[in-house]
């Protein structure tokens, strides 16, 4: 009998996660999905994959592209929990941080819904986050509150993550009547919370830190790009300093961020980005921007690069949570791709149009 190899818990976790990673769609599968004649054919194809269970569950509740979108999002949520159970302490924090980026969208939905006076059902209809950072039950309770003030009070009472940021944002909102104040407060709080969590847990070496830094850089670059474009429109310019996210490497200080905002065009703005990786990406998209007058391509390129970089770095790190981070990011890409194909099928778009929008294929 062959003696069992003594492997560490982390190595075991990485092996288990890698087995799931092997089930990610390959190029042939994507080609089949793209060549599906209709949404129904796409649904049938997906039913022969790992998404079968979630698809049959969601087909009962909704239909069409929405059912597919909800089902694959549900699968992503399940996979977060699958990965999380292998880790404790420091490693678990990384997944919590990763989940936080999605959970915070649900928290924003609650706040935005209360601001718009939407119903409970309308608010919770599109909850997406895995719930590792902010528990789903807490979000449901917040969605049940009558007003924005009640949400703030309940968030503080429940002591959910970012409760103080919500409170601070709500105070600013009361003065300026701009909901973006609450959101900015949440975005800033998320990144400082994430950095603090990782540094406390001695997670500095994991890819999650560089991923967070990259995301901050991308958000700062896109904020400035939008600001430069918005200058074409009449009206009072926004207080740019409030939109600055600290912790990035491209604009390490507010002063550099504000200096780049003085650019009069996107071409000029590109010269303010000194980090070679991002400078190259921005430069490569200038021609596309000048033709289409849209920042979508730049946004997509930057975000895809950040995610693909994190996946490439993470999947090699079997002795920490990197493999799980890489897997979950790759799965998120797959979810986005399937959603994109489903919507495109519903919208009767040609496969060649969709193909160039797919991420990581």
């Amino acid at each position, binding site marked *: 009998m062959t003696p069992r190899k003594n492997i560490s818990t982390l190595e075991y976790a990485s092996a288990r996660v890698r087995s799931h990673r092997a089930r990610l769609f390959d190029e042939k599968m994507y080609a089949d999905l793209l060549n599906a004649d209709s949404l129904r054919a796409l649904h049938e194809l997906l039913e022969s994959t790992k998404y079968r269970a979630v698809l049959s569950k969601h087909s009962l509740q909704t239909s069409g592209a929405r059912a597919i979108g909800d089902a694959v999002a549900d699968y992503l949520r399940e996979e977060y929990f699958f990965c999380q159970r292998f880790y404790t302490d420091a490693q678990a924090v990384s997944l919590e941080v990763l989940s936080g980026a999605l959970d*915070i969208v*649900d928290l924003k939905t609650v706040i*935005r819904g209360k601001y718009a006076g939407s119903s409970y059902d309308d608010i919770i209809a599109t909850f997406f986050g895995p719930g590792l950072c902010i528990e789903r039950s807490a979000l449901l309770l917040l969605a049940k509150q009558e007003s924005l003030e009640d949400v703030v009070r309940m968030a503080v009472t429940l002591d959910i993550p970012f409760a103080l940021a919500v409170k601070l944002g709500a105070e600013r909102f009361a003065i300026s009547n701009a909901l973006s104040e609450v959101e900015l407060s949440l975005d800033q709080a998320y990144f400082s919370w994430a950095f603090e969590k990782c540094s406390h847990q001695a997670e500095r070496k994991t890819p999650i830190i560089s991923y967070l830094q990259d995301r901050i850089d991308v958000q700062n670059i*896109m*904020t400035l790009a*939008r600001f430069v474009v918005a200058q074409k429109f009449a009206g009072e310019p926004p207080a740019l300093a409030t939109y600055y996210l600290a912790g990035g490497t491209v604009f390490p200080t507010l002063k550099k961020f504000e200096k780049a905002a003085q650019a009069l065009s996107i071409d000029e703005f590109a010269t303010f980005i000194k980090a070679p990786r991002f400078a190259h990406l921005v430069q490569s998209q200038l021609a596309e921007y000048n033709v289409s007058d849209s920042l979508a391509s730049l946004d997509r390129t930057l975000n895809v690069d950040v995610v693909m970089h994190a996946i490439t770095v993470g999947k090699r790190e079997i002795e920490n949570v990197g493999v799980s981070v890489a897997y979950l990011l790759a799965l998120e890409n797959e979810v986005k791709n399937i959603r*994109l194909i*489903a919507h495109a099928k519903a919208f009767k778009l040609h496969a060649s149009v969709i193909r160039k929008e797919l991420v990581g294929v």
Partner: protein
Amino acid sequence: MEEIRPTHAQLLALREQIKVATSGRDLLKSKRDALLLEFMEVVDTTLDLSVELSKTLAEAQYQFEFANAFDGEAAVHSAALASSGEVFVDISGYRVMGVAVPVIKQSPRLPRTSFNRGYSPTGVSVRVDEAAYGFEKAISSIMKYAEAETRLRRVGAEINKTNRRVNALDEIRIPQLKSQVRFIEQTLDERQREELFRLKKVKKKIARGHANS
């Protein structure tokens, strides 16, 4: 038919009425022609705006589907809640050939920039932003189209009204007045002939009386 007194005064009054009705009809015809010119111009503008509106809505719908597909319904739905709000319209107006035409001004001015749309641009993708921009542009187009269509409807209604008036004058009122004039003229002529005949009779009688005496 109304009762007519076949008097000379009535004849003069009727002739005056015919004159007024004819000049009124001519004025209404000029108004109708001017309104038709205005109508043709507004038709062109409205058609252009209708094409523009269809195009803007199709683009917005495409951007919305794309954002939904790429960023997920959660992100789009969430951003939509944050940027929801009321669009106030200020409706004033002016007159074209006596027709009240509306002028619609919206507040806040649409489309807005990503910095004053309600959500924070740091947490929303450009695709969601462009979908919002597309629909705000569509709202702006709807306002312009509504203004042009109302103008078109009102000018069209006024043309119909003017046409009916011209026809009423041309086909009913003026012929009616003319027939009344003819009736009075015939009656007056008849009376004149009777008077002449009577006078001749009297003259003959007087002459016969003189001859007998």
